[in-house]
Structure formats: structure tokens, C-alpha cells
């Protein structure tokens, strides 16, 4: 006959039944538990040992849809001899500059292995909007080197359709948290701190729609996440005509490679959502999280991004704007001279004020 060994919730050692106390006791750490508590604790943990996060495969041979006749012929491929970036444009749009590394010479390239995207969100923001946003972004930045803005060729900002994998799924999750409540009180000699430990369990479901994962290694994931979210109401089925006047990036991260990232974002969201329902505790930490996906579906979309990669004093700075909503992000260079002189100025100024106040108070 096999005996189930119950683990101590406090230290993980095996628990034994103490006949005197009529409780389960841990010989290692000395903590005692009600039998019912231990049973529930172990049941909760066991319920979470299930497989999770399975996605339907995206058929990389053909994509979800196929090119219509003549469609692919209207596209032109380019390759950047400097960074190896592959871009695509329609026949009417000549690529003159690599949007990733700022290299002014791009070469025509045989277009192959590109699948027809399922969806596209057309550009809504113009080049002028992007340039204005860049200037606006530089405004009021005291740490910006003085001549940075003048030296930038912001007219070279480019509109590019970035490939994204969009992950749809329903989830069925079971998350447990370690939580504590803390009470303190004191008598004339001691201050007491009592910590109550709880195991919190939440199970439930939530559906996700089109969680985007950047499908291009050339595009920094951080930047692509930072310009999110896109409004999917304006997303339409892909037609090559939307490419006219813009470039498109050819994806080089396939759907499978994008899954771990999507999983991570979905898991974090579920943990946060469930966490929001855990109230009244001093600390709450995830102990186990089991997120099962149902009807995981992947689609492929081109989303609009205005991008400027620019060299400043030997370092590449990237700026990106959501081509639909106009959300602008980027990292501006920092003038350390300005940084330290501002720091010194503030320090001296505040010290003078604080010393004056101290002088009057004393």
C-alpha cells in the first residue's frame, strides 16, 4: 500500500501525525497544521500539475492564406549589404536607405519565402506627423545634447510595415500564491510581529485576442512593445496595395519562435488578473502558475511603424512611432556634461534652501 507523503507548507519537509496534538506536525521546523488544512494544501498543489500552453501550429509552408495570382510579382525585395536586413516594397516604391542601420545603399534582392500576411493595419499617421512627434519628443529635454536635433536628418524617417504574429487564445488557469498577513503589537518590553501564512488559489478563464509578437529580429522587441497597443478595429485583410509608398519587413522570426514570448506575456497577464482578486494581504507572491491554452490560434499581420535609426557620435539611436495611433518612443542621447552640471546645480540650490530652513528652525 502506498502512503501519500504530505509536505510541510512551511519548509517542505515530510509531515507526521502527532497523536498528542491530533495535528500534523513537522519534525524539521516544528510547525503544526490541522489535518484538513494539509489535505487541502496538497490537493491544491496537485491540481496544478497539468500540461499547459499548447498552440495550434501555424502552417509555415503556405501561411494561413495563399498569394493570389500576380500578387507576389508586384513586390520587390531588397537586402542591405551592411546589416543583412531584408525589406520588401511594392513595385512603385524604391527603397533608398536601410531603415535598420541607416545605410544609404540597399540592393535589389530575389524575393522568396515570404508568406502572404493575413491582416494589415494601414498607415494612418503621415511622415509629417512622425517628424512632428520626433521634434515634440525632443522638447523640454534638458539632458539632450545641444546640437542633437539640428544634426538629425529627420526627413529620413521611414514608414515600414513590421511583421507581427498575433496570438488568439482562451485560457484556463489555476494560479496559487503564497500570501501573508502581518500583525504587530507591543507590551512594555517587546514588540511582537505575527505573520499568518496563507495559500491562495484562484482558478478561472480569460480570453486573449491578438497578442502581438514582433516577427522581425531587426526590430527591437522592446520598441515594438513600447509602441503598442494597436487598435485592431481598423485591421483589414491584407492586400498588396497597402504597401504602396511604404516598405515592409520580411519576417525572420517564425511563429514557433514567437510563442515563448507570447506565452510569457499571457501568463504574466493572467497572474496579474488573478492577483487583483486576492485582497487584504500584506504580501502576495506567485507560488505555482498553470495556464492552459484552448483554441490557440496564430495569425500573421503587418502593422505600421514609422522608424528612424540614426547615428549620433558613433552610437545608433532608434525612434519608433506607432503608424496607427501616433505613440512615439525612443531613446535620446544624454549629455553627461549637462547631467552633472544639473545635478550640481540642484544640489547646491536645494542645500542652500534646506540649510536656510534649518537655520531658522534651530
Amino acid at each position: 500500500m502506498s502512503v501519500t507523503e504530505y509536505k510541510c507548507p512551511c519548509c517542505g519537509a515530510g509531515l507526521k501525525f502527532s497523536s498528542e496534538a491530533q495535528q500534523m506536525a513537522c519534525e524539521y521546523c516544528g510547525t503544526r497544521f490541522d489535518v484538513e488544512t494539509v489535505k487541502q494544501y496538497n490537493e491544491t498543489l496537485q491540481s496544478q500539475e497539468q500540461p499547459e500552453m499548447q498552440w495550434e501550429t501555424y502552417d509555415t509552408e503556405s501561411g494561413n492564406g495563399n498569394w493570389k495570382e500576380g500578387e507576389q510579382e508586384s513586390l520587390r525585395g531588397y537586402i542591405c549589404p551592411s546589416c543583412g536586413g531584408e525589406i520588401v516594397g511594392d513595385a512603385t516604391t524604391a527603397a533608398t536607405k536601410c531603415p535598420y542601420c541607416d545605410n544609404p545603399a540597399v540592393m535589389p534582392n530575389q524575393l522568396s519565402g515570404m508568406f502572404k500576411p493575413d491582416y494589415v493595419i494601414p498607415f494612418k499617421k503621415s511622415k509629417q506627423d512622425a517628424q512632428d512627434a520626433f521634434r515634440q519628443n525632443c522638447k523640454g529635454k534638458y539632458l539632450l545634447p545641444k546640437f542633437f536635433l539640428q544634426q538629425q536628418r529627420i526627413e529620413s524617417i521611414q514608414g515600414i510595415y513590421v511583421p507581427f504574429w498575433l496570438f488568439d487564445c482562451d485560457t484556463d488557469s489555476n494560479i496559487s500564491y503564497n500570501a501573508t498577513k502581518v500583525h504587530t503589537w507591543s507590551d512594555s518590553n517587546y514588540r511582537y510581529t505575527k505573520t499568518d501564512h496563507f495559500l491562495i488559489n484562484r482558478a478561472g478563464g480569460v480570453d486573449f485576442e491578438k497578442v502581438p509578437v514582433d516577427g522581425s529580429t531587426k526590430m527591437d522587441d522592446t520598441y515594438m512593445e513600447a509602441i503598442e497597443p494597436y487598435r485592431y478595429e481598423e485591421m483589414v485583410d491584407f492586400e498588396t496595395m497597402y504597401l504602396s509608398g511604404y516598405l515592409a519587413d520580411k519576417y525572420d522570426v517564425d511563429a514557433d519562435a514567437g510563442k515563448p514570448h507570447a506565452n510569457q506575456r499571457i501568463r504574466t497577464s493572467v497572474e496579474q488578473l488573478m492577483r487583483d482578486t486576492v485582497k487584504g494581504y500584506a504580501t502576495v507572491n506567485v507560488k505555482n502558475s498553470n495556464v492552459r491554452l484552448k483554441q490557440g490560434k496564430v495569425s500573421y499581420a503587418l502593422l505600421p511603424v514609422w522608424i528612424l535609426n540614426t547615428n549620433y557620435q558613433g552610437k545608433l539611436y532608434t525612434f519608433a512611432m506607432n503608424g496607427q495611433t501616433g505613440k512615439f518612443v525612443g531613446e535620446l542621447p544624454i549629455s553627461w556634461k549637462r547631467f552633472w552640471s544639473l545635478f550640481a546645480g540642484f544640489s547646491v540650490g536645494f542645500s542652500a534652501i534646506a540649510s536656510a530652513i534649518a537655520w531658522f528652525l534651530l
Partner: protein
Amino acid sequence: MKKRVMFVLMVLFLFVTAVPVGASAEYRERVVDRAGLLSESEEEELAEKIDDLIDNYNMDIVILTVGDYTQYTNGGMGAREFARSYYADNGYGFDEENSGMILMVSLIGRDWYMYIEGEANVAVNDYGSEYITDRMLEKLKDDKFAEGFSGYLDDLELFLKAYDKGKPYGDDHPVVTTAKMLKYFGIAIGASIVLALIIVLGMKSGMNTAKPRPAAREYVKQGSFVLTSQQDLYLYSNTTKTAIPKSSSSSSSGGGGRSSGSRGGGGRGGKF
């Protein structure tokens, strides 16, 4: 009836006139070292200090050491009463309120009392007597009597000076030592530097708006979130205790405390 009134008036007259006449007529020692705790030069030094203080602030200051004060009191008086009566009986004190103070130290029982009379209670109030004697007791505990008395007089001068300027020290106007002042300014400057650093670091972080999004909550289908079960299971508790640090005041170290006496005098005393 008339006789009785006359008698009372006579007694009062004698009492009122006798003491002040004696007080102004003879020179009184201000450092009375009956217990022999001080060398001659130490005694002189202290006496000089006291003379200076008396000249400047017009408050009487007496330091009295005895071997065992109970020998003088036939067991009936406490340290406070002994100090008070010594001060009164020997005609110490200036002005009509006999303003001044006496510090009595009795070696055998290691008792001490600082008795304060008249206007001196304004200069050296509860806050002052605690401040001055706490610092002195540190020295007396190590039998450093000359040092203790000298420090006592230095601290006393601080309080007399503040009183003289019309702003006596008290709970609402505490003594500011150089160390305390440095501490305050140190805190002010330190806090300023930290604040300046927070501001410039905030500006620096504002230079990079490309921040990753670890979650994907924007993509949750509206109204799709349902909880199918929730359970909050209490497991166990543990309790820790930490000792509360004791503040070291003279009352706990020597059983001292302030009391008001029959002649409106204040003071503080205890054991060292």
C-alpha cells in the same frame, strides 16, 4: 488677642530682618567640599568660574559635597530637604526670591540633588535641570568630580546666558550643540543631494521612452475573465519578538525626579 498679634508680628520681623542682614554681611563659600573630593586647585578653579557666573548673571550658585548628608539631618530629611535647608540656612540666594541654585553631592549613599530657588527656576527649568545633570552624572558615576562639576558649570552658563537674552531654553526651545547643528545641516545637505539625484535620474529615465511590456492586458477580450474557484487557505503563523530599546534617563538610572518644595523651589536629584 492684641498680644498674640504683636507676638506674631515680632517673630515675623525678626525672621525677615535677620536673614538678609546676615546674607549681605559675610562672604560665603560657593564651593563647599566637606567630603574632600576636590584638590585645592580644583576648588579654586571652580570657585572662580562660579564668581564669574554670579557677576554676569546675578544668580547664586553653590556646590556642596558631604560625606553623608543624613548625619546632618538626624535622619528626618531627604536629600532635597537637606539641600534646600543648607541653601536657606546659610543665606544663599540673591534678590527677594533668593534666586540661585545649590548642587549637593553626598558620597556615602551616592546621592545628589540640585535644588533651584526663585527666578533661577525660569533659567533652569525641568528641561534644563535634566540636561545639565544628565551630562554631569556621567562623570560623577566614574568619580570624576572636578570634571563633572566643571562641566556642570559650563552647561549652567549656557542656560543662564539664554535666560539673560530673554530666551531661556526649554522643551520648546532646546539647546543646539555644534554636533547637533552639524547633524541638522548634514541631513539638510544630504537630503538635498539625494533629491537632486532623484530629479536628474528621473530626467535621465525620461530620455528613454522605449519600455518593454511584460504583460498583455490590453488584449484581454472584454468581459471574458471569469473566476471558477477561489480559495484562501490559512496555513500557519509565526511570531517574532524584538526587545524595545530603553531610553536611558536619569529617572531610571538614579531614581531622580523633579519636585516642588515649600518655598516654591524646584530641582532634581537621585543617585549616581
